[in-house]
Structure formats: structure tokens, C-alpha cells
């Protein structure tokens, strides 16, 4: 196209085309619209700085219990820079299925992404986010100095815990409960000097008749009923 023009003009540069450039008004001379989107791509009032707030969500994923599934899930989280608080995994009543419970701290769009990206993974069967009233529990095992066994026992009982090991120098106890209770218990044990601590992270189920992941059916094996006899534990009342 412009080559024809150029040959007519000999060695003169094209009058309308700047060197190494193109025609048209420069950026500042063009009309610009007023609207704006925030960093998450959500359209917002230009006057407002609407950044969604972070919240904690408990996400439950029903997965095929196959090698590598946990690394796929954890890999997904690290690759996509999701802020993960805890991750627990264990088999369910259905043979070949496992449940992964994730606690994430993200914005609403972020939590939405977590669920959708999880659901995309081939071994993931169902994903659900738990309500605030879900039944949640965490286990902590902690080892404290053994100088004051009576006091340690008192605190352990106060938090409905159990002593797993007691010796002249150390006492190891376990506490289960929701996150707040665990945090409080750890605080209470601090006075004795905590030597070591191991927390599992939260695991959770939906309360009452609500399935934990949408459409989840308890106690049924995927293929045949035979397989599931041993693990069949009950059904929801429909």
C-alpha cells in the first residue's frame, strides 16, 4: 500500500507518517471514557476505591483417591498464588474417594476462582464452599515442659483435651476443636513453655442434611453397591 506512495515521492519520508511511526492523533489528543475497573476487573465508580476485602472460606473438594491428587491440588494453589491457610485430606466412606478440606483467605472473586480452578482438575469430582455454620474441627498435638504436671492437666481438662504422653521432662497433649478453641488452648499452654507443636489444619463437614459438596451422596461406591458394603454408613433423607 504505502510503498506505491513512497516510490512517487522519491527519498522524502511519507509526510503523514512520522519516522518509525504511524498517523493519527497522539494518546493525549484522543477522547477517553470516564469509567474504570478495579484491579480485579470489576467496574467501579471512578471516585470510589472499591477493592474487595479478604475473607476466610472453607472449601471442600471430593476427589478421586489416586496418586498425585494432593500434589495437583497443592500445585494449583502455589502456581496461582492463592493464599492457603490449611489443607487436610483423608478418605471418605466411598471407596476410591477422598475429601480435601481447604481453608483459604481470599477476596470473593479469589474464592470463586479457587473453587472453579479446583473443579477443573480431572480427579476432582465436586467442590463446595461450607457455610459459616459448618461443623469444623482441628487437631493440635503439643509438647510442653513437664515441671507442673497438675497445672498442665488442669488446662488439658479445661479444653477437653487428652494427655498422650507424660514424662518427667515433657508432657504431650492433644486438643481438638474449632480454630478459636485451638488458638485459645495454645495460648493457655504457653505459660508452661511449649517445646513443639503440630497442627492439622481445619477439616469440616456441612451441618445437618446438607451435603458437604453439591450432589454428594454418602456411602455409595461409584460403580457398584457390592464394593461399598463395608463402607456404606448411611443416607441423607431426601
Amino acid at each position, binding site marked *: 500500500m504505502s510503498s506505491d506512495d513512497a516510490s512517487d515521492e522519491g527519498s522524502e519520508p511519507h509526510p503523514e507518517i512520522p519516522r518509525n511511526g*504511524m498517523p493519527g492523533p497522539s494518546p493525549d489528543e484522543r477522547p477517553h471514557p470516564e469509567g474504570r475497573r478495579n484491579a480485579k476487573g*470489576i467496574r467501579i465508580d471512578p471516585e470510589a476505591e472499591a477493592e474487595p476485602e479478604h475473607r476466610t472460606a472453607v472449601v471442600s473438594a471430593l476427589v478421586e483417591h489416586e496418586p498425585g491428587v494432593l500434589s*495437583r491440588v497443592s500445585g494449583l494453589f502455589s502456581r496461582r498464588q492463592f493464599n492457603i491457610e490449611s489443607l487436610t485430606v483423608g478418605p471418605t466412606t466411598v471407596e476410591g474417594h477422598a475429601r480435601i478440606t481447604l481453608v483459604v483467605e481470599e477476596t470473593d472473586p479469589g474464592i470463586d476462582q479457587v473453587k*472453579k480452578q479446583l473443579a477443573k482438575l480431572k480427579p476432582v469430582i465436586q467442590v463446595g464452599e461450607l457455610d459459616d455454620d459448618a461443623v469444623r474441627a482441628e487437631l493440635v498435638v503439643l509438647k510442653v515442659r513437664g515441671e507442673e504436671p497438675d497445672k498442665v492437666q488442669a488446662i488439658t481438662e479445661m479444653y477437653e483435651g487428652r494427655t498422650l504422653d507424660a514424662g518427667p521432662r515433657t508432657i504431650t497433649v492433644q486438643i481438638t476443636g474449632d480454630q478459636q478453641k485451638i488458638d485459645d488452648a495454645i495460648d493457655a499452654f504457653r505459660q508452661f513453655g511449649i517445646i513443639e507443636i503440630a497442627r492439622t489444619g481445619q477439616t469440616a463437614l456441612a451441618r445437618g442434611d446438607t451435603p458437604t459438596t453439591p450432589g454428594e451422596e454418602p456411602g455409595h461406591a461409584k460403580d457398584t453397591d457390592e464394593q461399598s458394603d463395608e463402607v456404606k454408613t448411611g443416607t441423607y433423607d431426601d
Partner: protein
Amino acid sequence: MSEHAPPKSDAADDAETDTGVETGAEAVVAALESAGAETLFGVQGGAIMPVYDALYDSDLQHVTMAHEQGAAHAADAYGVVSGEPGVCLATSGPGATNLVTGIADADMDSDAMVALTGQVPSHMVGSDAFQETDTTGVTAPITKHNYFAGDADTVGDTVGEAFALSAEGRPGPTLVDLPKDTTLAETDAEPGPAETPETYSVEEDPDDEQVEAAARAIERAEKPLLLFGGGVVKSDACKEARGFAMEHGIPVATTMPAIGSMPEDHELCLSWAGMHGTGYANMAITHTDCLIAVGTRFDDRLTGGVETFAPEAEVVHVDIDPAEISKNVHADYPVVGDAATAIERLDAEMDRSPQTREWRSQCRAWKDEYPLAYATPDDEPLKPQFVVEAFDEATDDDAVVTTGVGQHQMWAAQFWTYRSPRTWVSSHGLGTMGYGVPAAIGARIAADDDQQVVCFDGDGSFLMTMQEISVAVREDLDITVAVLNNRYIGMVRQWQDAFFDGRQMAADYDWCPEFDKLAEAFGAKGLRVDDYDEVADAVEEALEYDGPAVVDFHIDPAENVYPMVPSGGANGKFALSEDQL
């Protein structure tokens, strides 16, 4: 291991068809055949040898590539052009890791592809054995799904599943890692039909309420803009998408992967938007009040900064992958489903077309204001844009273009008028230099015999995979490679000039060999062009040559790519020259 196969004869063939599957490797090959694979691209090696041995008696075409990366790119491009998953093979360890770039490339561009990798025998896995790599571990983040096939009785079904899964819903690469004991083991398990796994469910038909809400939004828009993404091409929805645009008089911008989804010479087509997209497409995106995006993931090279992307628009987002909805850009009207189905449903739901007369004339005005142009005074070195236009004029409308990555890729995208889907084959999301030559090989094999295949490459990009020219020579593939040689790694040089005070660290490529002579050394035709008056003859000679031809175009080293939306900038504030950056 199988006995060394006797030379092929009719008798041997007959015997083979009678006996069926005898080993894991034969099950792999049988699965590929029954899934509809026709061509494989690969490189031999220790751990994959049983599969190759099984190929000896198969009708599947195998193309030995010079490097596994070439195999992956060729398979990828084969898939893009044919619409069927491409298949690549490599051995364990270095073979598998050499595939990684190509797999990642296919993953970023949602291209259906199946990679088969050899693996050390199961009992040696984890021992750091010779040529062992944790291939499923390495490729987990860059595959749609991958498999470790530890059982000869199920390996055929696994390969079939990998094949089906790669194409189902949103396409992507899958990988099957094949330990040598699995492929050597005896089995008589014939693979069943290739089926996607039960846990992978795709919603193809969009929800009624979603369609209705989106249709209302489009009806009331005054400045609607369709944005076709790669999904429109991959789901073969171009006919429906074009029909929708024309019926309702809605201008169309595309993303780079969707080049060709809308004929670029159509009055409604604004060509492609994004960092180096047309000024008019970017102006339209900036000013639209209803962006109807179909099958795009809103890559940052398209959006620039999302806070300034389509700031006034309500966004209708059609995508088969729910995870793409509101991932990068919030969708006001999400429509989850297959592109063709969704567009037909939207069309049926619309009671009237939006009133777009003024808006269309505004778009036409932008086309006049910001034409793609370049200066070509006689005393200047050859302009690359001129070369692209010369090839476009000399080729048929359905010619396939492949590219490497860099400035040449942008010129090839800007100055060639694409009219048909699956004629633009490029590396978008990953931006893989070296994609062009192996892609041209895959495209050549997938394309119709009368379709021309032209690869535009840069000097830096060509240098990365030009060994594959040897494959094109061996296979006698009629491809033309146009190297737009500016003796720089040009896009980097452009950024160094614009953003690093012209400190051209490691961007100078004046050490490049003479590509025409290299081409001749490979047995291809080699040509060199320095001036405008040599272009036409060289283009003609290269295109007419029946076999691979490489033309080394020595272009203006100072030429840069414009327009340009600076990284993270606003689409409407594209620079037209360096002083605007």
C-alpha cells in the same frame, strides 16, 4: 520385547491384523489408531523404543523431528490446522523435558495435543535412573491432565482417554507417561473407544437465564463490540459468530489467537486488539458500552491494565470454561457454554438488533485515523511490512501462516489480511521463540495439499529451531520460510530503546549465520534479499519452489512495531511512535 519386526510384506500385514494387541506398546498404538490419530511427531529413544517398535507395523504416519521441542510444536500446529489433537512422542528424561516448552505452549493457547513420553521401568522410578525425570510432576502444571500408565492392561484405555480429554470442552494438552515395563508387558486388552473420564463434565448448553440477561444487555447497547477469542476458532464457531455480527451489525475485534475467525477485509472487522493490535480495535474496546467477549481469557497482552480495559462496558462473557468467567475481567453477564451453541441461543433470544449506525461510523472513522501504515522511501533499507504484504498478495486466501515470536510475528499479524480460521498459527500465550519452523511442518502435514504454508520468522527465532528445516527437506515438505532478519533480537531491542534508555544489552544479533547458505546446506532452497526490487522475484521463486525454501530478508534494523499499548497501559492510549511511549 517384541522380536525385531520382519520387513513389511503383505503376508506380515495380514498376520498383524489377525493377532490384535499383544503388548502394552501395541495397545498404545491401537488406542491412537482407534481415537483417529493419523500423524505422530517424535524422536526415538531408549524408554520409548517399545512404542516405536509397535509403530513399525502400524499405518500411522510418523515424522521424526530433529528435536523434541520441534515435535511438540509440530503436533500443536497440526492440531490447530486440522482441528484434531496433534500427537507427539519422546523418550524419558531429556526427551520428555525437551517437550515441555511445546506442551506449555499448547496449554497457554488451549490447543488439543497428546504427548506420549517413555519412562524408565516402574521398578526403577524414583531411583534417579539413567534418563529418568519425574515427567508427570514436571508437566502437571502445564497439562490439562497427565497420566502415569503403570498397567499394560489399561494403558490403551488411558491413551484413548488422554486423546478424548485433550479435545473435550476447552481443549488442552494431555500427557501419558509410559514406563518401559508397561509397554513391553504382554497384554491382550484391546483399548475401548476413546472416552473422557466421568469426573470431567462440560456444560455445552448455556443456562436460559444467562442467555436472556445477556441478550437484553446487547439489545439495549448503543456501542456494542464483539470480541472473538481463540475459543471461536477452536470450537469451530466462526460461521455462527460471523453470522451473529453481520445480522446485528455489531463490529468485531478479535484477539490474536482468533485471527481469521472474522474476515479481516469485512467492513465490520476491526482486526485484532491488544498490545500491538490495530488502533481502531483498541479504540473500539476503550469506548464500547457492551463488550461481547466469546472464548477469550482476557490475557494481559489483550487488556493492558484491567482497570482501564473497556472502562465503560458491560461485559458479556461467553466461555466453555467457567473458571475463565471473572478471572481477569469481571463478567456482568456470564454465559457458560460452547461458543457456537451460545451464539445461536443468544441470536434466538434477541428480539431486535442494537442501533449501531452511529457506532459503526465511529469505528470506520477510527479505521481512517489509525491505518496500519509504514514509510518506504527508496533510500531506506527494506521494510519488513512490505515483505509480509508481498507474500500476502502472492498467495491464495487460504494460505496458512506460521510464525516465531517477536517483531516479525507482529508484522505478520498486522500486514497480512486473514480471511479464514485455522490459517494463522502462532505462539500467543507462552510467546515461544522458535515456534515457526516446526509449526510450519505440522501445519503443512495437516493442511490441504493445495494450501500454501508460509512461515515468517525472525533471525533470533529462526536460530532456535531451524534444525527442523532438515526434516522439511527429508519429508519434501513444500513450505516457505521468510526470515525477517534485522540482526537484532528485535522486540527486546525495541523495549530497550523505549524503556531502558537504549542500553541494548545482548540484543545485537549481527553474529547470525547466513541463513540462505544454511538452508542450502540442509538441502533446502536458500535465497537472500536486501532491496525492495528483489522482493517480488524472491517471493515468487520461493513460493514456486516445490520443497522447503528459506528467504533471508535483510530488513531495516531500526524498524519497530507500532501501534503499541505499553505493558499494563490503557488500550486507547496506544503509542504510534517511540516518542509517545
